[in-house]
């Protein structure tokens, strides 16, 4: 059976502002933020350590994707409720697929 290596870890963590991720962090591991306080980090020692230090809660990719999708769908519902005049100046939020 072939082993599948996951290049990314998934989790939720609250962005506390300055110092939440640093220039050094960005040089050390992959980092991306998504709606729902979802973070995707490189699946390596430094990425895992960062998520732990931020009191992050590790998620499976499916769990993380569900959180993002829920946020996007809520934003889409809000957009759908806009008047035509308001909506024409704003793009409808697009679905986001996690890496």
């Amino acid at each position, binding site marked *: 059976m072939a082993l599948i290596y996951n290049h990314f870890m998934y989790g939720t963590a609250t962005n506390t502002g*300055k110092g*939440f991720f640093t220039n050094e962090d960005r040089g050390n591991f992959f*980092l991306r933020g998504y*709606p729902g306080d979802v973070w995707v980090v490189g699946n390596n020692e430094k990425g895992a350590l960062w998520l732990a230090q931020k009191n992050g809660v590790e998620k499976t990719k499916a769990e993380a994707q569900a959180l993002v999708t829920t946020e996007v769908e809520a934003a889409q519902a809000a957009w759908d409720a806009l008047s035509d*005049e308001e909506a024409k100046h704003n793009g409808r939020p697009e679905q986001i697929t996690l890496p």
Partner: protein
Amino acid sequence: MATYQDIKGLRVKYLSADPANSVVGEVWYNSTTATLRSLLPSASWASGGALATAREGLAGFGIQTAAIAAGGESPVGGLLDSTEQYDGSSWTVKTGLNNARRAIAGAGVVTAGVVFGGFHPSPKDETELWDGSSWTNSGAMNTGRASMAGAGISTSALAAGGQPGVLDNVEAFNGSTWTAKTAMNTARVGPSGAGTTNTAVLVWGGYTSSPPTVISTATESWNGTSWTTTPATLNTATYSAGGAGTQAAALAFGGDAAPGKTNVTEVYDGSSWTTSPATLATARGLASAGIQTAALGFGGPAPGGSTLTEEYSVGTSAQTLTTS
């Protein structure tokens, strides 16, 4: 082939750890990691303090350590008049705009700025001056508009493009009145701009039609009299992107691309755009401030209005040398 010793007059140091006081370009061998290392320039985005009010479509101006965020739209509160000031680590709420609006543009510094245009809900011609503590209404634009590029300072600002429709109109502000100027070569909505006066501005990106949304990579340079489409084009076509810097040294980051939003950062050196290895942590269209080597990006849709702030810095870091 020349060796390192031939070029530098020194032999490559054999060290058990990276040196604490290396200089840019210095090369050493790290025996612990078994890698050839060097101190090289590097750029990256780090988190900054969060905005008090989540929003998109806001105006930004200033520098990385002293910036203003004004107006925009909250997904739960509608159009915003709120103003916040950044000090390099956190945002402080200041006196609100006289007119709440979104998709506005701004120019200036934290003690003397200007915001103009925007929707509330139709495109407006309103201009407000910021003196460091409050807003004062000033001369109206000739063409009410939103989603335009803004650049310059409060006494010498430029507005280019925007909507309704797809505008190529350009206006220059002298601190009290707006004067129509030569139109851009490419009409566009949501372009970005950089420049320190209304006679030396770079404008790039934006969309040229919608629907379907056609996003432009075109870059134009303004000399106070005419526009020149530069040979340089963006590597990633965007609109509602952040912009910082000057006409000859600009930074473009984030924005709406096709499809979705991008976290790409591009550097303009006066002749071409180069994609930086640095990327925003969160892809989005956003407001901006700063210069090419020290920029600030803040707000944006998340998808429902963002408090996120990111700081772009160019520094140095020890990196492993590879053959690729």
